[in-house]
């Protein structure tokens, strides 16, 4: 797989986890977060990318992260609106081909899809997994 230039916005648990994984797999990663303390979530062994301290809803911050060169942007802050805006700006203003956003509020998913955004909802994913486990438990119980 070719090495990608990836921007991860938000260095909380999810953002840092993704940044670690991507960096470890040989991709060039830049992480953006408003709070530099959050960079401590990055693993010193796995992560060899760059860190940018700043608000990603300000285009200048994205420029600092060299968004013009990015192959992929993942918006994973804890605020849905920030994620959506950053993803939209990356796609429409900076022409990033692949953008993904984490969203909590599943009611807005339809809207985001209309905007042409790829979204991942932790709540839907967790729901599906629980649902699967519930059925697995029920099936196992039924066989007894």
């Amino acid at each position, binding site marked *: 797989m070719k090495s990608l230039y990836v921007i991860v916005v938000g260095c909380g648990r999810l953002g840092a986890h993704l940044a670690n994984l991507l960096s470890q797999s040989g991709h060039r990663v830049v992480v953006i977060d408003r709070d530099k303390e959050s960079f401590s979530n990055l693993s010193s062994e796995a992560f060899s990318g760059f860190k940018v301290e700043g608000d990603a*809803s300000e*285009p*200048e911050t994205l420029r600092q992260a060299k968004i013009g060169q990015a192959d992929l942007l993942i918006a994973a802050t804890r605020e849905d609106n*920030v994620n*959506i*805006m950053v993803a939209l700006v990356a796609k*429409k*203003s900076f022409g990033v081909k692949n953008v993904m956003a984490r969203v909590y509020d599943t*009611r807005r998913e339809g809207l985001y899809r209309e905007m042409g955004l790829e979204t991942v909802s932790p709540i839907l994913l967790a729901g599906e997994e629980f649902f699967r486990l519930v059925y697995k438990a029920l099936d196992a119980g039924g066989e007894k």
Partner: protein
Amino acid sequence: MKIILIGGGRPIYFLAQAFLGKDHELTIVNSDPLECSHLAGRLKARIVLGDGSDQTILEEAGARMADLVLAATPSDPDNLIACQIAQSRFGVRRVVALVNDPDNKEIFEGMGIGAISTSLRVASLIEQQLTFDQVTNLIPAGDGKVMISEVTLAESFPMEGKRIAEIDFPRDALIAVVMREGETIIPRGDTILGRGDRVLLVALSGSREQALRLLTGHGA
């Protein structure tokens, strides 16, 4: 007009007063319970408590019937999403966002959202004040798109001593008349402007600033 105003703080309060003073029907959406009860006590507006970028709250605020939604919170992302939802979900024709970062103005406009940057606005007002001494008799025409101004040329200015044809004057602006020592001239390409001349400038709003800059040397 039915207007929905999203946000809080003093700017919103005074904005609301201005809208109410012009007999608009106003709903304010604010996410702070305390501020909501304050606003409810002081303004003749409907107050809705909640997140203005939430579809349900916008619907409750009457977005379906609204003529204008103005999102003016301190968060650009919240303003953007509120406007997007108002536009795409409720078909509100005029949506305007306050942009806190002037850099976002163009981006919002690219998404079909009217954008006002307070800092850019204030900067341009101050600039206008600086040239005000030299610029008088402002007559708006053509629904306010055209402005006719009289400009007194003083000090040194970029166009001084040059023939009009030589100057890269904005397309949508015209020096219509030059008044010089009691003489009135309709200028041609070979007219040279000098200190003490008074000119009538006819300009579309987009070109006015640039034209004034060439004539006064201010606000570069």
